[in-house]
Structures are given as C-alpha cells and as structure tokens.
C-alpha cells in the first residue's frame, strides 16, 4: 500500500503588505501530514504558525506555493466547493470563538444548517456530538455559563459537526489550566484513535507536543527548522535552535557551585528506546570498575517510549572511564561530555 499524504504543503510562503513594510510570515514551508497523524507545529509567538495553519483551510492564502488536501489543490476551490471542503476540515481556537448570543445547541446547529441539514437530523446530530464531548446536559446553556474547558468541548463538537476528517487546532489549550489542558488533549487523542481523525495543531506549549503529537515541525521566523517524529525530535534534536527551544536539557542543568566542585568526569547520558528502563549504567560501571555519582536526571515517557536523561560524575582511572563510555555507547546510550 502506498501511503499518500492527506495534506501536502509544498513551498508555501505568505507575505503581508503593511503600510511601511512587507512581512514574510511564512517562508518556503514544506511538509506532509498523513491520515491519522497528530501533527504539531511548535514555535514562539510571531513564528508564523498561526498564519501557516490558516492556509490549510483557506482563511489565509499563500503568496506562493501549493497546498493539496486529498490530492486536490485547494487554491482552485471557490464558492460551494470551498464550503464543502471546509465542512470536512474543522477548526478550534484559543479563545473558543463561540457565538455569545447562541446556546450550545444553537452554536452547533448553526454549522449543521450551514451544510444543509434540517429538522430532526440537526437535533439528533447535536445530541450525538454533545454526548461525544461529554456535555449532553449543557445543550441549553449559553457560552458565558460554561468553563473554559467546556467551551472548548463545544468548539470541538462544532468543528466535527459535519463529519470533519481533519481538525485544525489554533493554540486550542493555551487559554486553559493544566488539568483542563490534559482533559482536552485526552479527548483529542480519543477522537484521533476512534475516528482516525487527523489533527494539525499549533502551539507554543512543549507539553502539548509531548503528550499527543506523533510528528512535529519546529518553526522559527516563518521557517520550519526541524521536522521529525516526536520521540526522535526530543531524543536527538539536530538543530541548536530546536535543542534550546525545546529545553531538552534544561531539567538537568546543574547549579554552578555543584558543577565547579565535581572532581571526576561529568557526562550526560541520554537513553533512548527500551534501554532507558534497563540497569545499563550500573552493570557497565561494575564491569569497568568505575564509580558513578548521579547528580541529576529523569525519565520521560512519550506514549510507550521512554526517554532517559542523566547527569553523572564518573570516578575512576581514565582508561576505565573511556572503557565505560564505549560500553554505554555500544548500548545506544548517547553520551555528551559536559565537564
């Protein structure tokens, strides 16, 4: 089976003409999204990700380049065809963007009616959607009566109302507290699993990426600087920007006075794959007669994969230390000398 990308973004650039200057919001961006992906685009604010995600449903048009969805160049769509295309591509927003004068029911019914549904079909579909997002008792509530998390659930129900196959998330959890963020991400994950919903999300929150994305593009100044699957990106970032932006080692930075008092060799070990859960360091150190002293470390889990990060001081004869480092490298542990 040949896996054809659901979304193909080819050399897309977006420039805006403001009064005084030309703003290059997106610069020559190329990436593919496959069916079932949860594709994350991460970058700081002003990196162009908001503009980029809007080119996918034609809220913004590329200045150059091409975007194909399901093999169709979306720049060719207009009128009814563009509407039909948008029915199948939902979008949720940081500020939820629900109509304040409409109830939850009316907000969702609006997009169903926009797609030509009438009467009973609208009623039953709204109920179905509210059950799906866990708000079946809130049909008659107004947005102002809901919490942030509930509003976003309505946003999700509205976005998927017309059986959308793709969901665009524009900083969808950035206005929510950590617990609510986790609950909304769980819901997105469940929709991805149960309906094969393809999700493209933009965020500046590293945790969002770690929790649900299977592939990630890192964006800076309108360009994609690195693109990889999530685990590879966090375990072996190729670009200096990615490394600093993702704060890959921040959690294991040593205070200066500790670092200055270290007598042995200071190294950082990055365990990837299953070796993170094996006692490799202990076994190898015993074999090579090196003593070690753990100064910092953690293990993180990405879905089922573990990523370990340890900072240790090695004490022993230089030859033995070299032997230990070689032994660890043989076990696919990534070693970095930081003394």
């Amino acid at each position, binding site marked *: 089976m040949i896996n054809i990308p659901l979304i193909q973004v080819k050399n897309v650039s977006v420039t805006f003409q403001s009064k005084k200057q030309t703003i290059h919001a997106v610069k020559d961006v190329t990436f593919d999204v496959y069916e079932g992906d949860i594709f994350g685009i991460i970058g700081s604010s002003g990196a162009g990700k908001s503009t980029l995600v809007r080119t996918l*449903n034609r*809220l913004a048009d590329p200045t150059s380049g091409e975007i194909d969805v399901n093999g169709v160049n979306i720049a060719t769509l207009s009128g009814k065809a*563009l*509407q*039909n*295309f*948008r*029915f199948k591509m*939902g*979008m949720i*927003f940081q*500020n939820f*963007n*629900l*109509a*304040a*004068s*409409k109830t939850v029911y009316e907000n969702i019914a*609006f*997009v169903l*009616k*926009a*797609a030509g549904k009438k009467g009973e079909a609208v009623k039953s579909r709204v109920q179905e959607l509210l059950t799906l997002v866990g708000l079946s008792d809130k049909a008659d509530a*107004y*947005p*102002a*009566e809901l919490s942030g998390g509930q509003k976003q659930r309505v*946003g999700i129900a*509205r*976005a998927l*109302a*017309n059986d959308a196959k793709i969901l*665009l998330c524009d900083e969808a959890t950035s206005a929510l507290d950590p617990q609510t963020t986790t609950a909304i991400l769980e819901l997105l994950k469940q929709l991805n699993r149960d309906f094969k919903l393809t999700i493209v999300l933009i965020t500046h929150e590293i945790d969002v990426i770690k929790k649900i994305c299977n592939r990630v593009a890192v964006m800076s100044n309108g360009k994609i600087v690195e693109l990889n699957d999530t685990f590879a990106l966090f375990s072996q970032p190729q670009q200096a920007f990615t490394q600093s932006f993702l704060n890959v080692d921040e959690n294991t930075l040593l205070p200066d006075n500790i670092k200055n008092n270290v007598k042995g060799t200071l190294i950082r070990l990055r365990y990837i794959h299953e070796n993170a859960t094996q006692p490799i360091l202990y076994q190898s150190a015993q074999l090579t007669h090196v003593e070690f002293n753990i100064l910092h470390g953690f293990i993180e889990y990405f879905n089922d994969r573990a990523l370990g990060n340890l900072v240790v001081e090695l004490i022993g004869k230089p030859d033995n230390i070299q032997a230990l480092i070689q032994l660890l490298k043989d076990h696919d542990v990534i070693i970095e000398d930081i003394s």
Partner: protein
Amino acid sequence: MNLTFNELCDLLWIAAKETFTMVSWSLLAAILFGTIIGLFLYLTANRFFFKNKIINQIAGFIVNATRSIPFLILMVAVLPAGFYLVGTSIGPKAVIFPLAVAAIAFYARLAENAFSQVDNGVIEAAIASGASHYRIIIGILFPEAFAQLVRHATVTVISLIGYSAMAGIVGGGGIGDLAIRYGYQRYVTEVLIICIVILIIIVQVLQFLGDTFADHLDKHKH
C-alpha cells in the same frame, strides 16, 4: 394671553401626535436604511467579507458629509427634495424627510460600530465552518450585534426628538415647536415648562425601555 386647561390639553395632544408622527417615521427609516448602510460600511471594511478600501471610503465620506451638516441647515437644504416625495414642504409630513436623512446617516455610523464590535474570532470560526456569507450575516452577525443595535436605536430616537424641535421653522409642529411658539414667542411660561417636563419624561421612558430591552438581550453574555 391665558389658555384654558382644555385649550392647553388640546394643544399638547396635537403637538404630541405631531412629534410622534415625525419621530416614528424617521426612526423607522433610520433603522431600515441606516442598518443597511451600516452593514455595507462594515462588510466593505472587514477582511472576512468584502473588504474594499475605495468603496468603503466613498460610502464613509457620504455618511460623514451628511452628519457634518447641522440639522437646521440640512433641513432647509433637503426640503425641496422632500416636496417631491410627500407633496408638501410644510407641516410634520414635510419634516419627516429631512429628519429621516439625518437619522439614517446618524444611525448608519452607530450600526457600523455595533457590527464591528462583534468578535472577529466568532466570524472567523463561522467562515472556517464553511457557512456562506449570507448565513453568517443573518445567523451570527445580527444576533451578536442585536443588543448593541437596540442601544444605538435608543440614542437615535432621543436625538430625533431633539431634532424634531427644530421642525417649527418650517411649520412642522410638535412639542418642541409648541414650546417655542407659546413659551418663547408669546411668553406663556407654563407651556414652556410643561413641554420641557413632557420631553424629559419621554426621553427618560425611552432610555429606560431601550436599556431594559438591550440588557435583556445581553443577559447571557456576561
């Protein structure tokens, strides 16, 4: 010169009816055409609809030009045109046309303001959902702006009552005219005072009704 109570009541009743005729018809015209022009100004300024700088500026200029003419001058300037429409250039009927012109321009700006206060994010979400422009205007823009439109209509009707007092210049009648003719020109101070009191009561009642209705519409928003 003294008026009997019955004479005074008759005068006030006729004047009130004249004011009502002038204000209600011109308000109706203002809401109808002012909303349409206000919507036009909004749609030609908003990037989610039919943004067109040149057309928007031309329309905006016409509205502003009308608004910048003092009502008294506008009234005498457009009366001849009103003559062709209503067949007379004196009396309350004649004044409706200039009042309507002023009120339409006034309300058009306020309506535009009401529409542009609608959260652009809500409009963007509706566009992203695939809804047509027509459906978004009817189903999202109007309901979201409605409370504000009601508030602005209240402001407009109160201004119209003020404008209508100038209608006396062309024999338009009304409460304001009564106050000028009897209270000012004939020194019947009681009439002047009664007219002022009546105008204050009418304005207060209208403001109260408008606010109550708008707040009722807004009650879910906060």
